[in-house]
């Protein structure tokens, strides 16, 4: 299952149970041991003195170690805690500038040690990461130190506007990106998820070192950060290094977002964009309600994911007939996304003719909602998700991203599997009926 599709479980209180401890071995001092139920793999979690949440997945025998430091600050955070409005795209801009230090570019430090470093910004968080097959501890110290401060001067900020301007221009020509944000702008009237993560050339123009400093001070404090580490590493050493580097920092606050006020209806029923593409691309969005609380949210997210897999997965209820009719090809896909204050289902396809496809898709959705999924479909889908979930543990990267999703959601490793097991055909049918009658919007890309 996708790393974001984690499901809830009650947070265990106190020490792990004897059963868990026996399976997983003793947790290093300061850590709580958690066990992934299918593979019985051990994950440990701790809170560093500074407030950083630390997750480690020991993966004996792996050459590569992977570490990711994440702040719960993303493009949806449009204001500072004191109410100051931030320019669109500043979270992403800050991500770019965090690599600059008084001694030079942090990329150089990683490269000199043979490590590979990167960063990315999402709606809800910004992550900095490296992978290394040697000198893990030195690289981890660099990662932790980099988060401490931002070193932005006017010439550097202005030069970065040129680089980011080219990044934005690249996405301007990216059909997948344009279609997706076109859909979000059609679905949402006020919710900040409708804002492009990178902003625009105009929105980043006023960014200066001072506002970057204020934003960093507000959102890059230890209590707002999560470190996830996977590989053949010693959890106790990881925690010791986090304490050593971040121990004296101001703890700060966990960024708890308030739900955005978003009307039930959509902003526009349809958005059309002309682009240099070979044939039309059509995206349908179904505006759903998110589940309540971490557990309810994850349960609903799992349900949504199962539904879209049953309908649009390979050989799926809707995919197969549309494919046979030649209305779609392998480009047809469906998915479900949810955060604490928004959720939507999405169906995307490249098509020859827009209207026959739209008509057929809506008719198929209505028929599926009427009949509902069968027990056999649910069981097959459950198996597919179990297979995907198992693949997560093949790679240090995917394991670290899985832990991050757990941390951001505030749930335990076994919860996803529990939610998957508890999904029923009747529950899925109810959810599908809600989705099919929910406000919907289209994003259509047309060839220029």
């Amino acid at each position, binding site marked *: 299952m996708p790393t974001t599709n984690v499901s809830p479980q009650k947070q265990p209180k106190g020490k792990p149970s004897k059963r868990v401890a026996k399976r997983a071995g003793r947790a290093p001092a300061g850590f709580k041991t958690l066990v992934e139920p299918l593979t019985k793999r051990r994950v440990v979690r701790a809170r560093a003195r500074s407030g950083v949440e630390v997750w480690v997945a020991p993966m004996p025998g792996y050459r590569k170690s992977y570490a990711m430091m994440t702040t719960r600050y993303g493009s949806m955070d449009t204001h500072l805690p004191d109410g100051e409005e931030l320019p669109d795209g500043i979270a992403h801009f800050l991500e770019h500038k965090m690599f600059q230090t008084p001694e030079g570019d942090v990329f*150089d430090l990683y490269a*000199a040690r043979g490590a590979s470093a990167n960063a990315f910004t999402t709606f809800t968080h910004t992550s900095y990461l490296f992978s290394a*097959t*040697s000198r893990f501890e030195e690289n981890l110290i660099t990662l932790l130190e980099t988060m401490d401060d931002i070193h932005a001067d006017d010439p550097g900020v202005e030069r970065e506007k040129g680089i980011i301007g*080219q990044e934005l221009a690249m996405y301007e020509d990216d059909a997948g990106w344009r279609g997706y944000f076109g859909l979000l702008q059609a679905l949402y009237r006020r919710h900040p998820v409708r804002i492009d993560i990178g902003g625009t050339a105009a929105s980043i123009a006023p960014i200066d070192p001072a506002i970057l400093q204020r934003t960093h001070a507000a959102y890059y404090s230890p209590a707002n950060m999560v470190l996830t580490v996977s590989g053949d590493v010693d959890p106790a050493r990881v925690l010791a290094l986090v304490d050593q580097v971040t121990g004296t920092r101001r703890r700060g606050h966990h960024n708890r977002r308030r739900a955005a006020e978003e009307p039930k209806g959509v902003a526009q029923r349809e958005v059309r964009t002309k682009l*240099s593409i070979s044939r039309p691309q059509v995206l349908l969005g179904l505006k759903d309600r998110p589940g309540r609380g971490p557990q309810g949210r994850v349960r609903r997210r799992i349900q949504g994911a199962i539904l879209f897999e049953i309908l649009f997965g390979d050989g799926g209820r809707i995919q*197969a007939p549309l494919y046979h009719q030649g209305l779609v090809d392998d480009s047809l896909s469906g998915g479900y996304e949810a955060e604490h204050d928004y959720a939507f289902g999405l169906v995307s396809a490249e098509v020859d003719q827009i209207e026959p496809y739209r008509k057929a898709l809506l008719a198929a959705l209505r028929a599926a909602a009427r009949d509902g999924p069968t027990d056999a479909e649910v069981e097959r889908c459950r*198996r597919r998700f*179990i297979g995907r979930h198992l693949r997560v543990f093949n790679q240090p990267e995917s394991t670290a991203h899985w832990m991050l999703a757990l941390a951001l959601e505030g749930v335990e490793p076994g919860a996803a599997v529990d939610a998957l097991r508890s999904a029923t055909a009747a529950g899925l049918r109810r959810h599908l009926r809600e989705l099919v009658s929910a406000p919907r919007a289209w994003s259509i890309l047309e060839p220029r």
Partner: protein
Amino acid sequence: MATATRARDVPVTRTIAPGVRLHLLRTNRFTTSYCRVALHRDLGAEATSTAILAQVLQSATRRHPTREALGHRLGDLYGAALHVGVGKLGDRQLLVGALDWPTAHVPRAGRMLAQGLELLREVWSDPLRTTVGGAEALDPDIVEREKVNHIRGLRGMTNDKAGFALRSCLASVCRNEPYGLDAQGREADVAGVSAVDLATLHRDLIRRSPIEIFLVGDLGLRDATAAIRKHLLWSGRATRMRGVPPVGSVRAARARPRRIVKDDAVTQGKLVFGFRAPIRGGTAPGVAAETLAGVLGGGSYGRLFRVVREEHGLCYYASAGWHRPKGLMLVQTGVDAANEPAARRLILKLAREVAGGALEASALDAYRKDVAHRIDALRDSPRAMVGWLQERMALGLHESPDAYLDQVRRVTPAAVRRVGSRLALDTTFYLRPEGA
């Protein structure tokens, strides 16, 4: 740095039947097993029909005669991921069918290995067939549908602007060479493909093509060989295999570089440079040429990133890559149309400097460490390791990853200068925003 090789990380290769080699990577680290079957053939007149054949094979089998049935079987195998497709390895086309599926941590896991291999055999050797005019044919409905989808796919390749610019430059650099053709073939050839042709092509390919099988899983060579023979290998294999051309062939750049400009309704221009040198892959000069490309644009330590992006702020990405089997280097970037002349001049200047042996010690060191990291990390990724092995074996190279790494470490600036003196610009391709 940990470079010592562990016994279980070393792939073992055995010929297990005429024309069939098994490469086993034994490991218990992964939660899934991975098996890739690859047929090598020439990249030429039948490239398009082979690409369509891949799509047809993935659509249905005799036992699972519809896409739904096949999809359901994959679901029953805990979401087994099936991929059948074509790729390009130097002047060869590869027809690849691979399965990634859980063989542990699921109920009745002991049967999963056999079930996955049997499904892979079914997909490879037992497609849905019929007769047309007395001749054996693959299912005509599926063939016609996949021909339409193939044309859609070929046309859709222009949507990825960076990829399109890269392929266009490559087509010019490798004019009249197989490598200049895309692995998916040509739209003009699609109409001539018939269900009968595909049945004939399929029969010939699975009977007479040399087969490479890569298996990553937790089993020893004896068990793996037995499992492959029993559950995967199909009957009716010929004893004499068809020949395949060498993977690599090299030549010098054209006498006068060609500049191609194509206008498109895009926001950002895409600029690609194709350089050539008559340097064979796997040789010491070949490894020096890889170093040249790496120091120029292999990562954040490369001259392109540091100068074109970080110093001048002209682009978001700029990179260089060496195509080992063909002795060619492609350099690519995305730039604003107003900055294209400046970016072009700067990139050519940097390429000349690095080819002249002006290598920053820190960049050379970072490149070596980057290669060491990637080589070491191969062992954590079954697919990456299989891809690496596949190319090396096709090039006739049998050294271990660590031996390759030693070659990289031995490259000197003087060696780079020597290969640089043989490197010349062949083609510049610019996808220009309309109206610029």
